[in-house]
């Protein structure tokens, strides 16, 4: 199968959906003439023109609200945030409007809207640019949240998100944009709400989303090589809707769960997964559910320290060993 980058995979998803449906319109800062701050939209403006690919002023609240209004009349706006951290100046539009209007209208309105962009630490840009708001977003009934970890997932989830009739937040990762992976030439979709077992194993389940999955895979490799521990890696892919069954099936098989999460620990996504496991698979557990999250402070700038602040393979391995009583 051909190999492309996560960035190209997203670009293809956007291009294909733009081609498929005239209602799809890409809106955001530097998405058109600049070709995208992270080049996700590269070439789209040249191909589809200024009607479909719209550069905005730096006004996240304003243009996110514009997306909500345009979606009301049936457009399918794909709003790019240069960083999800910038959503914080437009949170009212995402949470109150995209998230609640359907409900407050008694179901008379639906909003086929995608809000996408990178949401990650690890690039030494300080706390303001390193937020991971998937837990905030998923805490709002009405919003859907997906966090692709691989090029294959990025393309399939993005295409589904654009066709979904509810607001979908797609949280990408600048550290993954250059990652390569197999992506078929032919069209495919990945449903929201379906997790993916990225590596099979028997001794412990490593469960995460986004780049944490990649880190977990590295840890699993070393656990096998160095400690003869067989770790299964479950990629949530979609935070809301959530595929609980795949997670529970894995835990019932391995009897141990270590949750890996680039969110901060307090009320992070992994906190929800932990509560679900103890509620529904308590008797299957041989050890407490454990977590490896970002260290609980604002994202530090200092490059060697920030690397340690995010979940590392070393920390995952140590946590697994602790849980195995080693």
């Amino acid at each position, binding site marked *: 199968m051909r190999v492309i980058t996560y960035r190209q995979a997203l670009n293809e998803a956007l291009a294909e959906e733009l081609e498929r449906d005239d209602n799809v319109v890409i809106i955001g800062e530097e998405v058109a003439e600049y070709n995208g701050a992270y080049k996700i939209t590269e070439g789209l403006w040249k191909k589809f023109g200024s009607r479909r690919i719209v550069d905005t002023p730096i006004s996240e609240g*304003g243009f996110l609200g514009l997306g909500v209004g345009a*979606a009301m009349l049936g457009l399918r706006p794909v709003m790019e945030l240069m960083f999800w951290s910038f959503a914080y100046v437009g949170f009212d539009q995402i949470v109150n409007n995209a998230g609640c209007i*359907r409900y*407050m*209208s008694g179901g008379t309105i639906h909003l086929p809207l995608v809000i996408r962009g990178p949401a990650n630490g690890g690039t030494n840009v300080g706390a303001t640019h390193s937020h991971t708001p998937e837990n905030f977003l998923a805490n709002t009934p009405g919003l859907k949240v997906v966090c692709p970890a691989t090029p294959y997932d990025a393309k399939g989830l993005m295409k589904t998100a654009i066709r979904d009739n509810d607001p979908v937040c797609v949280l990408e990762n600048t550290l993954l944009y250059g990652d390569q992976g197999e992506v078929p030439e032919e069209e495919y979709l990945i*449903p929201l709400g379906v997790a993916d077992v990225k590596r099979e194993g028997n001794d412990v389940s490593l469960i995460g989303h986004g780049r944490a999955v990649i880190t977990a895979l590295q840890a699993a490799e070393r656990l096998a090589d160095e400690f003869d521990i067989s770790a299964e890696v479950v990629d949530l892919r979609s935070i809301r809707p959530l595929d609980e069954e795949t997670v529970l099936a894995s835990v019932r098989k391995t009897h141990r769960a270590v949750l890996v999460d680039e969110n901060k620990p307090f009320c992070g996504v992994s906190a929800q997964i932990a509560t679900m496991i103890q509620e529904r698979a308590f008797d299957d557990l041989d050890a407490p559910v454990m977590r490896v999250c970002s260290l609980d402070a604002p994202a530090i700038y200092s490059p060697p320290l920030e690397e340690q602040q995010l979940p590392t393979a070393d920390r995952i391995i140590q946590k697994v060993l602790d849980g195995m009583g080693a």
Partner: protein
Amino acid sequence: MTTTQLEKSDVDLDDFAKATVNAGLTADQKLGFLRDMLRIRRFEQASLKLYQQGKMGGFLHLYIGQESVAVGTCSLLTPDDHCITAYREHGHAIVMGMTMDECMAELLGKATGCSKGKGGSMHFFAPNKNFWGGHGIVAGQTPIGMGIAFALKYRGIPGCCLTYLGDGAVNQGVFHESLNMAALWQLPVVYIIENNGYSMGTSLARSSSIRSCLAERATAYNMDWDIVNGENLYEVRAKTFEAMTRARKEQRPTLLEINTYRYYGHSVADANAKKYRKAEEIEFYKQNHDPIRLWQKQLKVEGVADDEVIAAIDREARQEAENAVKFAEDSPFPELEEIFDDVYYEVDQGTEAGRTGRHFFND
């Protein structure tokens, strides 16, 4: 405070009566404006009673005193045009064709309400009538109105979106972002500031730095603007029509400031309603600037209606409001299971997407 605009106690409606959009009005249409203004007022007076009886939760932001603005502006809409406003929206909702029954039931949180009891007073919607709410966060609707205008232009539909806000909303950042983008991209939106003089308990003079008026701020965005005497129904229609024509034909936005006045507090729960302005000020408006009273006078001058006709229209409006109260009181509350309906379209429709993965997280 722009009360200077309103100091004169008698309004000459004749000048704007000659405007094209008004000159051709039939007697029935003119009576229709009176009917709608009275319907709004009687609806709200009835809702106030329910609120005072403790039958309603939350807030109730009354529109009473401002009726000519919603009636004058919304009466100009065609099926290609749209309307969106903030939380003082009962008047707009009624003029846009929502029934008193569904609105009153919504106020009581009933299943028969326009939002099935899920929105409340601040969140009425009727997308099938081009009415997009009903928004609770100050200025939060202003970029949405721009987005509706964006979609109209994108689709080549010759309509516009009337986007209302209060004078308290003009200092929110997102409103300025919207003005900038609307002017930059030449979007068919008409922003209408309903300036009732107070943002909650803070007078305009204490909240906004202006040169002559709020609408003049549009000049900073190279946008057309105008100031309107809201008690003059003909003027409201004439000037709004001009802005709508600019939007529809030239796809250029306008910022209108319509001066008006509310008789009640910011909401009925406004504890200081009688402290930040004098009772005499309110009484002066009621006596001299009440838009319904002025319109009734005009209809009599024009020979369109006499006291008897006016009284009959008012009786019907009161009756309609009374019936709506009965309808609302007799209606059931939503069932607890319905709390999970209307969150996700895909779930409600039972699509494959709606059936995949867990969407709700109670047990």
